[in-house]
């Protein structure tokens, strides 16, 4: 393996962009590994979360944005809770996910689609509608098998406990929810212009 030429390969603009967008300071991390130590999903990650922090410190933009770890993070915030340096690590992962999405770098397409399906269902029904979300996930994104498996696995349990309903819930304030989506789109457009 070639040595990583840090003079050439440190993306300082990326570090600055990240700092500005997140308000987090990667320099606060002293690499103790407590985030990795507590992470319940680290076994599925390609890079453990402490290494994502290190990659961020060294400005390894491509490696981070192409990593599966940022998509597999469940935002359980164990890392944030345990971090002795008071870094909101879960938020760091979240912001990295946003940047990756904008740059069309999605290492885990299924996860992104699942998020999109969730948002779509909220946009349509103004709140979480599980069956609708699964349908979108299946039909729009084509995850027939995994969605069907998910439904088979947890569907019966959810149904018997009244956690799933076949019809969307009635909700007041549809207009307000629509405004949230509109406002976010506008913010995104303004950011894109900049």
């Amino acid at each position, binding site marked *: 393996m070639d040595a990583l030429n840090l003079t050439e390969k440190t993306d300082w603009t990326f570090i600055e962009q990240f700092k500005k967008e997140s308000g987090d300071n990667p320099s606060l991390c002293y690499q103790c590994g407590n985030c*990795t130590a507590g992470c319940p999903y680290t076994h599925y990650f390609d890079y453990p979360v402490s*290494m994502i922090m290190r990659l961020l410190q060294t400005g390894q933009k491509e490696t981070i944005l192409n990593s599966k770890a940022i998509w597999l993070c469940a935002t359980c915030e164990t890392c944030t809770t345990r971090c002795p340096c008071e870094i909101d690590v879960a938020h760091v992962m979240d912001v990295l996910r946003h940047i990756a999405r904008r740059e069309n770098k999605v290492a885990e397409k299924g996860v992104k689609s699942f998020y999109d399906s969730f948002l779509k269902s909220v946009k349509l029904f103004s709140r979480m509608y599980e069956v609708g979300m699964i349908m979108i996930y299946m039909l729009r994104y084509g995850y027939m098998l995994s969605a069907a498996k998910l439904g088979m696995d947890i569907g019966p349990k959810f149904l018997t406990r009244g956690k799933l309903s076949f019809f969307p819930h009635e909700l007041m304030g549809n207009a307000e929810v629509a405004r949230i989506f509109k406002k976010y789109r506008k913010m995104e457009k303004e950011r894109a212009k900049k």
Partner: protein
Amino acid sequence: MRVGVFICHCGSNIAGTVDVARVAAEARKIPGVAFATNYMYTCSEPGQDEIKAAIKRENLDRIVVAACSPRMHENTFRKTIQKAGLNKYFLEMANIREHIAWIGNDKELNTEKAIDAVSMAIAKVMQNKPLHATSFKINKRVLVIGGGVAGMQAALDCADGGLDVVLVEKSPAVGGIMARLDKTFPTIDCSICILGPKMVDVGQHEKIKLFAYSEIEEIKGYIGNYQIKIRKKATYVDWEKCTGCGLCMEKCPSKNSYDYFNFGVAPTKAINIPFPQAIPKKAKIDPNYCRQFLKGKCGVCAKICPTGAINYEMKDEIVTEEVGAIVVATGYGLLDQNILTEYGGTRYPDVISGIQYERLLNASGPTSGHIERPSDHTEPKTIVFVSCAGSRDKSIGVPYCSGFCCMYIAKQAILTKDHIPDSQSYVFYMDIRSPGKGYDEFTRRAQEEYGAQYIRGRVSKIYPKGKKMIVRGADTLLGTQVEIEADLVVLATAAIAAEGAAEMAEKLHISYDTFGFYVESHPKLRPVETNTSGVFLAGACQGPKDIPSSVGQGSAAAAKVLSLFSRDMLESDPAIAQVNTNACVGCLKCLKTCPFQAIVEDTLRSGKKVAKVIETVCAGCGVCTSTCPCGAIQLQHFTDNQLLSEVSAICQM
């Protein structure tokens, strides 16, 4: 009046951003200024000679030096003009370095500001009066607060130097933390074997008056003359009669007292002698556990004591001691393990602190040196050490490194292998901090010869599984999560300020930092002095320290006391408050606001009540001056007229 003005370049420190020649030229225009010049390094010997020569040549009687902060060189220049025959209070300094040159880059503006500062100093110096110091006698006795290794070293060095020492120790025996340790790094020599002789010396030295189980109640006075009130806490045992035979401890039926000496590793008796080598070796009753105090009947110790030393009616006693200097060696405390909730706090008996493990290793400890799990008294085979349990953790308010944990963990790992040859130690660490003579080699030995597994990463949580404790952490070098099934977990809990450190600082009028550690006068050049003259620091009360550093500081503090006491008289600063009895209306507001109790009520021959300043006690803070409703009390060298002349100088610019 002929004022001489000297503008210093301080190399490029001042001249880099201030036009010093122009400042001197402007100064020359001010009425009263007879001479003004600029010089490369005014504080240098030729610079001072230049001042002396100018005083003679130009017949100057007031001097202004525009240079660095008066904290740096005011004394230097005072001595200079004194040598040239002027009263040393005829000097004023304008701080054009820290206040001007270092904080702005605009040369034009800086120069203007420097001219302002210099003209203020000129206006003030013309109002200055000659002041003369009075001298007073020093009481050549020293108080040492704290009988740990630093305090004992300071006490012994002072006593060997011929001073009378009053040593006050909060707990029933001297020795501090070091008396509780098993072995010391990096030599693995027995802690109590090397400390014991010092403790005996302290107990027997004819120059040392030891107050064990006593606390400082009140401190009054000033450098050279302190009055100290010491509270001798009730031990319920007459120490004059107690021979330390230990019969009472043997027979005491109350077996579940908290053992402060052993950090609660095992219970002790309600009447106890903390450890076999204790100095003084005297018994003491803990009334929180004693049946006589709780239930009103028992009296076993009183019956059994061969010398009749037990006295249930004993009360705290206040004694007064007079000293001339104070060495503070109050040591440090340990972080409450309960804060570390992810490690279970103190819920799991087999997760203990480093100092508790030290007691388990110790031959005179509750297990006679056999390592056993507190839960089931079995011998542990897998022991996990967790460094930085609280240290370097901003989220719980301890961002600093405790300094000695890396070393004692390596020591404990080595001792563990010695005690239990078929054991395996694991050490979770972030960085190994071992910058001392033979220290790094020692941590290497723990790994190379004693097979301790060092894992670079923090521990995220500890939880029980059957009889084992599961330690989940990270190995950042492997880039993976790791888990160890441990029999015993030892947490290197953070070193924090001693309990009551802030209150003690208030009594002493010394400063302490955010974490409660005492602040030295200068971090490099005055490491054992405080900003209150006559009060010195030794040991971990100033910051976490290992034994060699604590001993070094103890000796250093003693050297400072001995050099202070090498004189018979001290000069008092004449820049203190003075009452104009004609203007004083006797309202005595000043008496109430004075933080040093330096003002008393006085009656003149005419019968008029007025305030009176005790010269030696006044610290010259000026609180009384700003309190006085009729301007009758004035701080010499900073009188209203002097300060107002500065104000009008700057307003006229």
